[in-house]
């Protein structure tokens, strides 16, 4: 595949750059430095040769070089600064300019909107936010999307506990679908990208597995020019059903340097350590139950993860789980030393060049990441090529191609997976060092040795040293984009794009591994293909002096195909060849899943006197996944923008700019393929010599199905004060989705676990605020830019279908008795679980005989998995050549059910379990000395120990009288009651997931132009960078609040999370 890719690039270069490669006559280079009024170099200033239309941007030191002939007009412009012109003369090839601030031009910031149309921000009737590539490519995340955390109002990014190779959940303005995909569409240089999750941890009972990542992680941060976030349906209506949850437009860098080959080298290297550690652990007591030491090897084996023993005492020698005697002494941090210090090396070289007719950019990136989990690593190479060429005056062609190759070893098992390391060590007795398992995990014959974790918790050393999983992804994307400008006002654009990903996943479990005793090899081999063709005709015309009209009409076909096999090979016969041919039982299940959407769309924009704008769009989609009679749906949008400061000619020193905007839109959506019919298939493994089969559909086919509709409304304003030093943007929106196509649970007695229906209405409303300012005076040598964003979104489930029960489970931790649900009248993502039985005053009722809290059999709302509000602060301070950037991410108000903490309590590791232990030990010693039975001791009222807080019914069942409890009990019995299979009291382990995090911190030194020159460079900088360096505030002990085990809609569950990672390192950027 690499060869195909390189050949493709070479061909393009030959066709479009013959002159660049073999020289050019008649023209010369104009070079110079562009600076501001204070003589500070200005990077990213656009220098345009108006004749040739060649555009170059100044580099970090303000330098530019543009190709020109005598008499060409050169335009130098930058946002917020007055545009200047000069005429090129070969007698004066060096032109340095100082640009002045210009209030009027600042109001014409251009952003990319739907279909890649560049428009002035003032024209837009909806909210967009643009993030510059420079803000994200220093402290690089392995998944580029994580860099946006905290930077865009209303964009909520949650990375899973899967770590750097895992996927991320990205939600804009809340969830619009109850059970479907709520993530935005990614559009890379105008081409929609399939951001399929390649597989993630199950969302239902016994959910476990690995997170195979998502497609967006393939983007190299160094290739990103800018990221534009289009939030509401009005902004995205033209992208159709795929964009119902917003669009993230990624514009990649183009060749825009000089005729000479520009070389840009960017390198970020860091070490990776644990950001979160177990921080709420008791260190006084060790292994055992009921404050008793294990009596023999068998009971030592059974209590390896129980810390309800007596006080630790190095003087005691204890027979261990393996028969070896060791001191009963504290081993501090006995779990976290399992993890290593990881590293990350991230290097990109980019080559670019441009002429008046053509430009190109080629980049090669290499990423090597060693995770803190031993044996886990990522290697990724990305090659990106983009080029643009004009043939004659009217025809231009853009080409873009990317090839990515990624290898990930040993993705971490998450959630309920028996190989989840985070879970498996949980509760390890204080006197046991994890190192012990490093060598004794297998027998001399190589058999797995049970270490006390049983079938569902495999020894982590077996997991990392004997088992393995490997993922290889190869991805090739290519697009051709041709435009023909017929006349000044009429143009036709056609695009064709393909995006192919080959995914190969292999997971090996040797013989004797619990759950795969005969040995097992699982393979997933899939090809994901997206092909899109698109045509767009545009017509723009100025009518009279005041009106500007443009109309666009387009159509597209989007094909997505997933094809491949999922295989399971079990019962290994040949033990030294980890290949499918070594197994007795082979099950290979093919899949071939196509889907097509055909669309036509139109857009009309009317501008009046450059202060009033009106947009109207309409789009019709036809989807192959819906029933034939319902497969076509049409939806419109309307938006308007009114720049009142221009309309009313307000021009004060305080209010420099003011705009009001409003929009309404509707979007339709379809469902997944093959859900309309019932299917059967054969099971793959013969039994008694013959194959059997069954109904393979797990979802009851719908009787009738309509497309989902989401209708939304938005108003907003953008105000700028004090000569644009302060920028304020606010938006209020509301949206309602009806006829939701949901796969929802069914009564099992119907024979199916799920059904597909049009069910329910979900409503979102919220506000978004953005304030950015440059508070220091223009004369100050120190520059400070600060930006604060805030968003509040409320997703309310208005109704569900009558075919659904009282609520709908989105995700379950059922063995722990808690689930995340959609329940009418409640916020989307409500946590439902079991609470204590309580008296009318809310006190916990205890069982009068055993003092254990009584469970209320009715499930209650215990919290919600979505945040009340989110926000972020980014700050940039610069002084001379130094700058300091920091970004903070704030999330407030969600709840997290932490099963890590539940088990730490049930296993006696948490500090809360210390209460009453000494008293209980003394009480038991006294009882034994008095030769009394437990019952006699209790009858005499002499039991001391843990006094559960709560009340006891001293009346009758019919006429209860609640009296505060004063009796004591064995703390072991009390705490272990919270970990029964099926229905736990979950309340004590629902924590606030609120946090304040520093996402990234970069301290940069930019070399002066003079120094660069001396070194023969065009520009360079060195930065110290930190990724996720601190959690400033959190409520949940022991784990990172950002620890969901999958990125599904059911957020709010945490189970045996691995520590999250922090990176410290440096970034070097050199331009030749």
């Amino acid at each position, binding site marked *: 595949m690499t060869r195909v890719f390189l050949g493709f690039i070479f061909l393009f270069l030959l066709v479009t750059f013959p002159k660049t490669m073999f020289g050019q006559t008649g023209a010369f280079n104009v070079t110079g430095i562009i600076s501001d009024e204070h003589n500070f170099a200005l990077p990213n200033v656009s220098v345009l040769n108006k004749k040739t239309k060649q555009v170059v941007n100044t580099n970090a030191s303000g330098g530019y070089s543009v190709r020109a002939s005598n008499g060409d007009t050169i335009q130098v412009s930058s946002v917020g600064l007055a545009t200047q012109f000069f005429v090129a003369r070969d007698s004066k090839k060096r032109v340095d300019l100082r640009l002045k601030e210009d209030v009027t031009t600042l109001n014409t910031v251009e952003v990319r909107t739907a279909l890649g149309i560049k428009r002035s921000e003032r024209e837009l009737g909806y909210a967009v936010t643009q993030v510059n590539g420079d803000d994200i490519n220093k402290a690089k995340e392995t998944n580029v999307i994580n860099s946006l955390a905290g930077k865009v109002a209303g964009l909520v990014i949650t990375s899973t506990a899967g770590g750097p190779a895992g996927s991320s959940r990205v939600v804009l303005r809340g969830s619009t679908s109850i059970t479907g995909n709520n993530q935005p569409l990614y559009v890379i240089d105008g081409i929609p990208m399939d951001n399929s999750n390649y597989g993630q941890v199950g969302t239902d009972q016994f959910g476990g597995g690995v997170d195979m990542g998502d497609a967006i992680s393939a983007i190299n941060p160094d290739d990103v020019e800018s990221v534009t976030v289009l939030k509401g349906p009005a902004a995205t209506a033209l992208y159709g059903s795929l964009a119902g949850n917003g669009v993230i437009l990624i514009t990649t860098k183009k060749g825009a340097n000089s005729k000479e080959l520009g070389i840009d080298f960017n390198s970020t290297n860091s070490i990776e350590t644990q950001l979160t550690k177990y921080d709420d652990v008791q260190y006084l007591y060790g292994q055992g139950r009921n404050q008793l030491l294990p*009596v023999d090897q*068998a009971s030592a084996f059974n209590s390896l993860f129980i810390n309800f023993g007596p006080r630790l005492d190095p003087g005691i020698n204890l027979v261990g789980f393996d028969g070896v005697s060791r001191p009963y002494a504290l081993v501090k941090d006995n779990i976290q030393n399992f993890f290593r210090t990881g590293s990350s090396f991230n290097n990109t070289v980019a080559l670019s060049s441009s002429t008046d007719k053509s430009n190109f950019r080629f980049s090669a990136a290499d990423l090597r990441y060693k995770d803190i989990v031993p044996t886990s690593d990522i290697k990724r190479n990305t090659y990106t090529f983009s080029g643009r060429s004009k043939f004659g005056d009217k025809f231009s062609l853009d080409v873009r191609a990317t090839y990515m190759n990624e290898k990930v070893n040993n993705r971490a098992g998450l959630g309920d997976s028996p190989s989840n390391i985070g879970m498996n060590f949980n509760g390890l007795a204080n006197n046991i060092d994890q190192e012990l398992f490093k060598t004794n995990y297998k*027998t001399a014959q190589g058999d797995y040795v049970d270490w006390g974790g049983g079938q569902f918790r495999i020894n982590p050393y077996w997991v990392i040293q004997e088992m393995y999983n490997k993922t290889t992804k190869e991805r090739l994307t290519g697009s051709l984009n041709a435009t023909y400008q*017929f006349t000044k006002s009429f143009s036709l654009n056609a695009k064709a794009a393909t995006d192919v990903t080959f995914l190969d996943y292999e997971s090996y479990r040797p013989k004797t591994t619990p759950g795969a*005793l005969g040995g097992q090899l699982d393979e997933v081999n899939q090809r994901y293909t997206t092909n899109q063709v698109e045509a767009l*005709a545009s017509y723009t015309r100025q009518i009279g002096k005041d009106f500007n009209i443009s109309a666009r009409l387009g159509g597209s076909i989007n094909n997505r195909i997933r094809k491949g096999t999922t295989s399971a090979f079990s019962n290994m016969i040949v033990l030294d060849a980890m290949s499918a041919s070594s197994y007795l039982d082979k099950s290979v299940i093919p899949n071939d899943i196509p889907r097509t959407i055909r669309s036509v769309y139109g857009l009309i924009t009317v501008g009046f006197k450059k202060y009033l704008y009106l947009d109207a769009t309409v789009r019709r989609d036809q989807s192959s996944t819906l029933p034939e009679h319902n497969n076509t749906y049409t939806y419109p949008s309307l938006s308007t923008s009114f720049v009142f400061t221009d309309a009313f000619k307000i021009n004060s020193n305080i209010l420099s700019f003011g705009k009001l905007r409003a929009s309404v839109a509707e979007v339709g959506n379809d469902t997944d*393929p093959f859900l309309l019919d019932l299917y059967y*298939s054969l099971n793959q493994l013969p039994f008694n010599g013959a194959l059997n089969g069954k*109904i393979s559909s797990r979802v*009851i086919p719908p009787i009738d199905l309509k497309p989902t509709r989401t209708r939304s409304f938005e108003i907003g304003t953008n105000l700028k004060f004090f000569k644009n030093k302060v920028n304020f943007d606010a938006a209020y929106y509301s949206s309602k989705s009806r006829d939701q196509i949901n796969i929802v649970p069914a009564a099992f007695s119907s024979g199916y676990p799920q059904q597909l229906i049009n069910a329910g209405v979900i409503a979102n409303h919220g506000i978004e605020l953005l304030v950015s300012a440059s508070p220091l005076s223009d004369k100050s040598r120190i520059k400070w830019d600060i930006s604060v964003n805030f968003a509040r979104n409320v997703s309310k489930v208005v109704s569900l279908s009558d075919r659904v029960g009282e609520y709908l489970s989105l995700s379950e931790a059922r063995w722990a008795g808690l689930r995340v649900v959609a329940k009418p009248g409640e916020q989307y993502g409500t946590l439902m679980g079991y609470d204590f039985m309580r008296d009318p005053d809310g006190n916990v009722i205890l069982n009068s005989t055993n003092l254990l809290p009584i469970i209320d059999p009715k499930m209650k709302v215990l919290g919600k998995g979505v945040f009340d509000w989110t926000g972020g602060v980014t700050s940039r301070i610069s002084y001379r050549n130094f700058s300091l950037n920091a970004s903070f991410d704030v999330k407030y108000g969600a709840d997290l059910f932490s099963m890590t903490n539940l088990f730490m309590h049930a296993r006696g590791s948490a500090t809360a379990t210390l209460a009453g232990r000494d008293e209980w030990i003394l009480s038991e010693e006294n009882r034994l000395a008095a030769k009394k039975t437990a019952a006699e001791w209790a009858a005499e009222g002499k039991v001391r120990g843990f006094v559960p807080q709560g009340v006891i019914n001293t009346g009758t069942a019919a006429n209860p009288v609640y009296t505060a409890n004063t009796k004591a009990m064995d703390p072991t019995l009390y705490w272990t009651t919270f970990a029964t299979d099926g229905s736990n009291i979950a309340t004590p382990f629902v924590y606030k997931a609120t946090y304040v995090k520093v996402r990234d911190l970069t301290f940069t030194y930019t070399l002066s132009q003079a120094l660069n020159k001396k070194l023969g460079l065009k520009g360079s900088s060195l930065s110290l960078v930190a990724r996720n360096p601190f959690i400033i505030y959190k409520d949940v002990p022991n784990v990172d609040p950002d620890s969901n085990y999958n990125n599904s809609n059911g957020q709010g569950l945490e189970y045996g999370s691995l520590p999250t990672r922090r990176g410290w390192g440096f970034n070097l950027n050199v331009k030749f």
Partner: protein
Amino acid sequence: MKQKITYIVMLLLILTSLGCKKFGDLNVDPTRSSNLDPASQLMYTQVYFSGDLGIQERTNYFMLIPMMQQFAGAFNMSFGAVYKKTPSYLWRMFDESYQNDVVNIVDAVERSKGVANQTNLNAMCRIMKVYIFARLTDTYGDIPYFEAGKGSTGQIRPKFDAQKDIYYDFFKELGEASAQLNAAKDRVPNEYFYKGNIPAWKKFANSLRLRLALRLAKRDPEKAKAEIQAAYAAGVFTSNADICMTRHENVPNSYQDPRPNGISAAWNSKNEMGRVVNTFLNALTVTNDPRVNHLIKCYREFNPVAPTRFLEREDITAQVRAKIGLVGAIPGRYNSDDILSTTAITLANGTSYTPRSIDLKPQLNHNLLRNDAPFFHITYAEVELLLADATQRFGLNLGGTAQEHYYKGVEAAMQQLSLYPGGPVVTATEINNFKTANPLVVGRELEQINIQLWIALLLNGNETYANWRRSGFPVLVPSPTTESVSQTIPRRFEYPLSEKQQNAANVEAAIKIIGTDDWTKRVWWDQE
């Protein structure tokens, strides 16, 4: 200009072509069938019934075998042993069975109904359907039956049917299906129970009818009598060759692979396996039952236990018996509460070894727990013992006296052990000695017969539990502890949360009839 028009025409052509209505077969899965042979589904349900580890482990190993005081002592059997209510274990069979075997057998019955060359297949499916639903209703009581498993036809919330109505339909179905079987008609050669043997299927249907008829002995004795006689007249099992069983395969088990025996896999994969409970051990020793020597073993356990090699453990029963005898688990106590010790013994290779407590606690002969152990659905022994019960209870003439049926049942039960690969062979002498020493004693006949059923049904927890509830024998002394949720032995399983959420109105109507959905309530036929 001409060129411009050409382009516009081309664009319009593209746009209109986008509007065409049909996608053809794009939304039809090319990798799956829309019309699979119903015989495949019958076969799936045959292997799933006993091969599903999830059901067998939760229902049988965790709950019913320890609850019936046969084997326990291991921590992992304490849920049933001391009535620790663990809802997900009670729910498992309901949740899994409906969405796996029920939906398929209901669909297979419907699709083969009235199809000319599938009359035998249809009859077999009807019999299998009764068998599957019987396990469910015996465990939970009133359940969705007539409307169950029909989600794809729009029946998304089946109503719960009274157990009486379900049972009456069982008898009707079994009678009709037995009559419908015809050796001259279609063959179903691959099915796993009898390889398509039609007379054997007839006997299976009638034997199942006999079993279900006995359930009603106290609640509805007239119906019971009529059905017993009808079943007997139609022909029931007459030898161990008739036993209905699934011959499982010798592959390691996982939750996804039903080929090995689920109860075996649940049991032999535990590092602490269940130990014989004194209740069961005493029942064998008090009658000098030869099976005590064949079934109850002490093994030198690996250190730690290696589940894949459990068959390689050394049998040290003789040495342990010589030292301390057989010391079973005490009801309601853990193995670790009751540490045994002894002095050194001599192993087979002549070395000296001091057994640990885990070596000394006797357990089940591990040859009965191999992954390829057959699962007995209905045995000839059970049929004879049921005939003995019916003869004794109702004075019916069923081809012999109660004593004769009892002897035949006991003999068959002892002989069926040899059907396990590597299983024990109880000799004719041993059997005769037992019979001679243990004839039916006047006044204790039903107790003796049903204690023999309790022994013969070992490893089939659901059936053991059902027969204990209907007969009242053996008399088990409840063994609650401080961990117990119930002080008495539970009488049914509770409805799952999933059903309460998705089928609320119907499940509430069913609960109203029994008062509360509690495991101490009784199913309809369970008369005090």
